[in-house]
């Protein structure tokens, strides 16, 4: 009896001691990592993903910091943090257009040494476009988190009602939109929207039709705005505006407003990104659940469809104090498992070809079956360390043109002059 009590109290003491010691070592080894993401890249889903990571790595705590709704607003904040060499952020989610700029500014810790001998094997698994975008000057600047491209979203129910097929050309889109708008007679219903506010997405509003016309902004590193293809975007958007297919306020429409208008049932067609699918199907306030179709963007001819590549990458800050741990987390965030999680939870397009064929992924996003060739054919915005300036010149002129305050010739002349000074 007495013996038993002694043994029990010994055991209790031992347990308490073990707990105390264990707690102490746990606290000592704890690393806190801070990752920055934009508000539009589904921070709620990222939190679910890092919860999985923390469960498997109890010595690591991950904080998710959320900022800036649009790409250029995020970069504005990051510019001030990183230009002052602040170590507060360990990892940053960056737009696919940024790796060149981040490499030049020396803000990203190259990941080559952390990948070690596996580097080539790891990089070979990604979609080629993302492998190319994240390797700058032979160094791995960031790892792909999710892929993206612009698609044409359409109202399946309305197209069926009027016996229409999803359009393959801009002319078909215009005709379909006009027919439905005339038939519905709903003053809130608009034909088509794309980004028109002075934001990053508006760069694609210019480039997609230019690519569709067979040219690119630069040719052999030189500016290529002299030909007819450079005028095509202006002609296309002016035509849709004159036909009342685009709304009169297109110049104040940023990316996420397109989704809101589409979800509210006020849009027939929308040129926007992958994330909209999940929101339109699942958001409580969506009025278009089960009425949405997604196809590749139209072209000037049915065989020449172009789209803008998007997507987000995980970079390790060059000023982080926990680079090794951060690189480990970056590899996890860029793994097939996480790609699948994002595809199911947020309709984020996978960065691995195989994930497009996953059963669960296809169940959540039936249209992913046709999305892979679109992502593979999607084109990149110009790659330059001075991308923020290039982007600003294009989007400001496009915005002024869409607002009707600047003629196409004047906008083109301004772009020529200012972009010419950068692409010398």
């Amino acid at each position, binding site marked *: 009896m007495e013996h038993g009590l002694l043994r029990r109290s010994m055991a209790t003491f031992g347990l308490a001691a073990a707990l105390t010691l264990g707690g102490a070592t746990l606290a000592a080894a704890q690393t806190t990592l801070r990752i920055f993401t934009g508000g539009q890249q589904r921070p709620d889903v990222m939190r679910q993903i890092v919860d999985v990571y923390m469960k498997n790595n109890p010595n690591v705590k991950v904080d998710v910091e959320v900022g800036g709704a649009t790409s250029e607003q995020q970069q504005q904040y990051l*510019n001030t943090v990183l230009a002052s060499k602040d170590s507060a952020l360990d990892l940053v989610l960056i737009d696919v257009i940024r790796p060149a700029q981040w490499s030049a500014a020396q803000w990203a810790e190259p990941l080559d040494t952390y990948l070690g001998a596996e580097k080539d094997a790891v990089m070979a698994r990604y979609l080629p476009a993302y492998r190319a975008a994240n390797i700058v000057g032979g160094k791995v600047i960031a790892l792909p988190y999710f892929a993206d491209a612009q698609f044409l979203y359409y109202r399946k129910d309305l197209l069926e009602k009027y016996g229409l097929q999803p359009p393959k050309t801009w002319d078909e889109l215009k005709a379909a939109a006009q027919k439905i708008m005339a038939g519905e007679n709903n003053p809130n219903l608009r034909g088509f929207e794309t980004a028109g506010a002075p934001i990053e997405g508006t760069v694609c509003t210019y480039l997609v039709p230019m690519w569709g016309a067979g040219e690119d902004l630069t040719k052999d590193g030189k500016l290529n705005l002299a030909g007819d293809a450079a005028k095509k975007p202006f002609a296309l958007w002016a035509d849709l505006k004159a036909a009342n297919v685009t*709304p009169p306020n297109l110049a104040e429409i940023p990316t996420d407003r397109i989704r809101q208008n589409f979800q509210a049932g006020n849009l027939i067609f929308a040129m926007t990104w992958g994330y909209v699918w999940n929101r339109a199907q699942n958001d409580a306030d969506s009025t278009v659940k089960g009425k949405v179709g997604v196809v590749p963007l139209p072209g000037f001819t049915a065989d020449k469809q172009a789209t803008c590549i998007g997507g987000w990458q995980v970079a390790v800050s060059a000023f982080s104090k926990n680079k090794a741990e951060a690189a480990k987390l970056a590899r996890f965030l860029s793994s097939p498992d996480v790609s699948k999680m994002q595809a199911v939870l947020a309709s984020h397009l996978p960065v691995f070809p195989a994930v497009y064929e996953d059963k669960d992924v296809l169940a959540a996003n039936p249209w992913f079956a046709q999305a892979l060739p679109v992502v593979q054919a999607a084109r990149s915005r110009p790659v330059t360390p*001075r991308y923020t300036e290039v982007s600003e010149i294009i989007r400001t002129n496009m915005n002024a043109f869409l607002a009707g305050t600047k003629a196409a010739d004047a906008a083109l002349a301004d772009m020529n002059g200012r972009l010419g000074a950068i692409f010398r």
Partner: protein
Amino acid sequence: MSTIKHRLTPLERSERRLGFAMLAPAFLLLAAVVVYPIADLIRASFTFLHLAQPWMGNPFVGFDNYAKALGDERFLEAVWHTVLYVIVTVPGAVVVGLGLALLANKPFTIKWPVRLGLLLPWALPLVFSGLIFRWFFEYNQGIANAILRGLGFAPLNWLTDPTLAFLTICLAIIWKASSFVALVLLAGLQTIPKSYYEAAEVDGASAWQQFREITLPMLRPAIFVALIFRTITAIQTFDIPYAMTNGGPGNATETLAMYIHKTTVDFLDIGYGSALAVLMFIVSAVITSGYLRYTRRDPGRH
């Protein structure tokens, strides 16, 4: 005060030393947060410094950045927009602010709701007011277009038409700034002795005459203070157009401060941005000293 010099006694000398010693921390703090940044800004404005191109280094380029500014259409447009904002919003805010101050100076039995109403716009953060006004004037969701539609008119492109965008921004700025002006003028109004008005009343002066002959002249110093503050902040206009239009459509509503922000924070072109900031600093300094000279030459003759 006599200005006759005399030898300082030891006591006075030690007092003077103590005085300097006690002022030193304030001087040092000012040097650290005002003098040093301005000096560094001026230094940077004579160099090439572009953080997106760190391999270019930080070479001295003389007056290149200033020469570039004078040939930069975007800069000249931004200056012109800023001048327009000053011309419209400074007198606008002073007139509206004067009206508000006169109203608030009425003998209300309960004064605090009136004062609170005056203070609120001033207490709101600038970006906040900008966002509120943007929501008012948004094409689809805005209340302005809802009213127009309700009255049977076509909705207007308030924020994407250059003239309308400029006017709505001015409206937001005047709304925001007039409350500060009203506070300054209200303080001025309270210093005017009631007996002046009583005397005028006895002499049979009308309300308008009282306002012109008593209120306005007595308020001159306060109006000048309000004008100086308002002009300086108008030259630095940033938050409200940033939140309402982000300078758009195109760059039709972009102010000088916004262009400087874009050049430095977005483009990371610190050298050129510094030169633009120095130019803005000079403009501010010239205008302020002009005001000060005018007030000193003419210290309320009435």
